[in-house]
């Protein structure tokens, strides 16, 4: 069929499914040599790759990658061949909205068939089951890798049974939203007053509550969990080295003032966080982790990290990474002062504008804030029409206001626990319990020469009855902490806290004290250690819990020959003592900013002395593990690291672990669908909840 001078030949004129016979002979002038042996080759089918579906009302569009050599494709729907086409796409108009269909495609070559694609399952869209805001409104971002396409196609972030790409109501309760019936209502709450409208200045839950309603970040929590799902970024990609994060932004998302959100706004917001003039208390998160940011086109935003940081996506859920409207904000703020000592005068905080489900209506200083629904929210308007929040921080006032029907939700303080249980029995209220990512502890100053001795720290820990105090004070509502991490934290190794190597045991405590030569030589009932009476002060912030605990522990320790005194300070003083290291033992706790163990482990990271590591615990091994944990993204490896860190900290007790708190919230039965949890109620975007009549 042809003559060539090389010793190879490529035949592209073959049809898949057929087999061909070839033989070769040498040619010299007119002479033809002896034929080679005959080889028989069957042309196999190449598998069709990358079948994708798009939906429009009443139609489903299939698309797949061109296979070279393939002339025709056959489309199967629910197992039956429906048509044969020569293009690489097919539009099926014979679909019923709300029905689910399965498609696959094969290559047809003569009467041979093969190369079957994977099966695509599609829920037909339309009015009832929309797909607004999901990925197929716009095609997949061009640069998104096959793996990530696959991931975003299949994953069902919010567990409502609708895969993410088809989930119009991402994060909402279900696909069938009976809007009219659930629409309306004013949800009234009461809390401490917010301290700032600027999400980059916000550090607490009081301010965080408004920020989570008004703004969106690139990613968000799945309501009620600590899992991350898309928010303003509809998809993302992480480079193999873990350094570059590419975020593909949703299109057609508008700020409350009608301007469209683009990557310029994201970029500006990140730069603003980094700008020293703004003095953001969370600026460090940009400075420490992020190398550079770039808006590569209107809907693509790239972040390059200095080194891999495994929990980076969860970090981005924090309000300091919320996206602000560039044009609106920059026109209303001004940097003043000399370089090096600049501050910013921000004038938009009297009317903050974001992309969130709720928009600012009014704020009366010292009284209340009112937010109204954003009807153009990208996943549809919230059921509720209004959120009001009165400012009063006193738990008793909040409970009484709830009892009087002035507000719709309240936390339940321990002293009201029993009366709420009764009300629950009578069906008057509903109580929801959810774990908080929090640990409270007694912090030991490891800089104190005596407390550098691990055995002494252990002996003291065994000498105090933490169990009893948790039981007595919280009526069994909170969990005794046996180690630093709350067990609901991701990567928490199963069972690591089950046994406390330093559980309450007076005899063992005495033995350990004897073993380090801390004995009572002068007969006053108090042991001497290092030439001094073994005596120290427990300093705490004003709290009946700690006070009651201190009473118990003082007498516990007296029994083993240690003198503990107790003093209460106001919180600002406690913070100063902790920061300066001017204390012996003090009470504090940690509530996660973002749900990753590393956020907790800053407390024992030798590099973080005295910034966050106020116990001044400096252990080379632990510091090394923590730093590995930051950069390791493999879940199994992370869990192993956490296990090692937990075990060592548990044993060496730089802090004496006390309890993991939980949140208990009461609502009236008319309120449905509040999904708080994981990171706390303040992060709930309140898109889902609704009132029944």
């Amino acid at each position, binding site marked *: 069929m042809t003559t060539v001078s090389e010793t190879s030949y490529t035949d592209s004129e073959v049809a898949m499914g057929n087999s061909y016979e070839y033989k070769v002979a040498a040619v010299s002038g007119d002479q033809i040599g002896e034929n080679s042996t005959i080889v028989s080759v069957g042309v196999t089918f190449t598998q069709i790759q990358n079948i994708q579906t798009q939906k429009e009302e009443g139609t489903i569009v299939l698309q797949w990658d061109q296979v070279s050599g393939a002339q025709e494709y056959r489309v199967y729907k629910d197992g039956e061949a429906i048509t044969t086409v020569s293009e690489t796409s097919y539009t099926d108009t014979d679909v019923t909205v709300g029905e689910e269909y399965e498609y696959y495609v094969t290559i047809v070559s003569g009467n041979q068939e093969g190369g079957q694609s994977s099966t695509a399952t599609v829920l037909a869209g339309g009015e009832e089951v929309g797909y607004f805001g999901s990925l197929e409104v716009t095609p997949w971002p061009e640069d998104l890798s096959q793996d990530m396409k696959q991931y975003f196609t299949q994953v069902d972030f919010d567990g409502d049974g609708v895969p993410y790409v088809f989930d119009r109501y991402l994060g909402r309760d279900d696909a069938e939203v009976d809007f009219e019936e659930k629409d309306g209502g004013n949800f009234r709450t009461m809390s401490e007053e917010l301290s700032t409208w600027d999400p980059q200045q916000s550090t607490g839950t009081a301010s965080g509550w408004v920020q989570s309603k008004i703004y969106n970040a690139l990613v968000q929590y799945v309501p009620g969990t600590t899992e991350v799902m898309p928010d303003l970024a509809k998809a993302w990609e992480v480079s193999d080295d873990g350094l570059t994060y590419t975020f593909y932004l949703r299109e057609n998302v508008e700020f409350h003032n009608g301007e469209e959100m683009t990557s310029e706004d994201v970029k500006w917001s990140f730069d603003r966080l980094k700008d020293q003039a703004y003095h953001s208390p969370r600026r460090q998160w940009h400075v420490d982790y992020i190398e550079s940011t770039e808006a590569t086109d209107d809907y693509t935003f790239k972040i390059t990290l200095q080194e891999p940081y495994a929990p980076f996506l969860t970090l981005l859920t924090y309000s300091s990474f919320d996206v602000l409207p560039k044009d609106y904000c920059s026109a209303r703020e001004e940097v003043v002062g000399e370089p090096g000592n600049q501050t910013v005068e921000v004038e938009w905080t009297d009317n903050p504008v974001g992309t969130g489900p709720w928009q600012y209506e009014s704020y009366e200083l010292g009284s209340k804030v009112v937010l109204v629904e954003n009807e153009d929210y990208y996943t549809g308007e919230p059921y509720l029409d209004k959120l009001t929040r009165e400012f009063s921080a006193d738990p008793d*006032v909040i409970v009484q206001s709830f009892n009087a029907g002035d507000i719709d939700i309240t936390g339940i303080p321990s002293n009201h626990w029993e009366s709420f249980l009764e009300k629950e029995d009578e069906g008057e209220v509903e109580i929801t319990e959810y774990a908080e990512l929090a640990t409270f502890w007694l912090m030991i100053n490891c800089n104190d020469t005596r407390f550098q001795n691990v055995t002494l720290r252990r002996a003291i820990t065994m000498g105090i009855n933490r169990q009893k105090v948790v039981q007595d004070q919280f009526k069994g509502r909170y969990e005794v902490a046996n180690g630093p991490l709350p067990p609901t934290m991701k990567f928490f190794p199963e069972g690591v806290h089950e046994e406390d190597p330093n559980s309450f045991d007076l005899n063992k405590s005495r033995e350990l004290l004897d073993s380090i030569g801390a004995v009572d030589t002068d007969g006053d009932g108090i042991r001497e250690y290092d030439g001094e009476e073994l005596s120290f002060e427990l300093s705490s912030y004003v709290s009946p819990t700690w006070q009651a605990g201190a009473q118990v522990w003082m007498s516990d320790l007296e029994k083993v020959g240690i003198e503990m005194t107790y003093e209460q300070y106001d919180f600002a003083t406690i913070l100063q003592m902790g920061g300066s290291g001017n204390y012996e033992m003090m009470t504090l706790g940690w509530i996660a900013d973002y749900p990753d163990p590393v956020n907790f482990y800053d407390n024992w990271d030798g590099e973080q002395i005295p910034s966050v590591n106020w116990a001044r615990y400096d252990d080379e091994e632990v510091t090394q593990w923590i730093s590995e944990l930051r950069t390791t993204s493999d879940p199994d490896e992370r869990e192993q690291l956490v296990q090692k860190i937990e075990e060592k900290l548990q044993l060496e007790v730089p802090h004496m672990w006390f309890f993991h708190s939980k949140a208990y919230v009461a609502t009236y039965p008319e309120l449905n669908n509040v999904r708080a949890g994981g990171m706390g109620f303040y992060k709930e975007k309140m898109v889902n909840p609704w009132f029944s009549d």
Partner: protein
Amino acid sequence: MVNKEYILKRLGLAVLVMFGVYTIGFTLTFVAPGNPAQAALGQKANKEAVEALEEQWGLNEPLPVQYKNYLINFINLDWGESFRYRGESVTGILASRYPKTMYYAVWSLVFAIVMSIPLGLIAAYKQNTWVDNLSVLVSQVGISIPNFWLGMLIIAILAVWLDLISVVPDVPTGSLWSFPGFFTHVTDYFGIIITLGTALMARNTRMTRSSTLDVLSEEYITMARAKGLKERTVVLKHALRNALIPVVTSIGFNLLLLFGGAVVVETVFGLNGIGKLYIDSIIRRDYPIIIALLLTYTIGVVFVNLIIDISYSVIDPRVQLR
């Protein structure tokens, strides 16, 4: 009558008082342990952020410089921004709080006066009758009940049980001092007014009663009666006016006491007035607010005292102001 020299002298004295209060207040505030920047940023703030904020707020300046700055800024009416409410001006915050506290303080005073003067008067006039016994009972109970307990009782009965009022009055601050808001919002603040006014009412009842008793035994009353004046004229014109002198002069002082009670009442009712602002600002080390509150309150005290002294001479022309 009131003479100018006297007022000038008093104003001069007022400046001295202000200066003293400022010095003591500043020292107590700034020397107390606790770092405002740390308190604002919380436990998790890193050191650089805290230092940046200290610099922004001028906390790294030597104390005498800060002492001078705060004073000069106060006099120039440049009170700066709050440490706790970022971006909010101190004047704005005070303007959102003072109207509330003043509102219920004034109404508590009205409540106390309206209740106590007739009750005290009748009790004295009808001494040892059931009215008198009632007035004694009311004043004893009223004085003995602690504010916080009465407040909790009122919340339990009026707000939770009968559902007549909200626990925390939810009223736009702006409308409190407008017409007709000034009168219509009494119902919203009813619980607070009663709670705060009761003790004052009790004290005033007792005072009115005893001073009326004193006056009624004076010779000029006997004289008036001897002249054949109507009993009504005797009591209302001759006795009441004299009996009221100690009551009226103590009213101003009582108003200041009411502000003191504000801390307790506002905590119980969760109302964000001056009392709670003061406590919160101390806890959060919000220096600009503390200083501004201290000075504005002192101005108020000085001013009210001046009014009281002037009112002496109006009610009782024998009092000479020098």
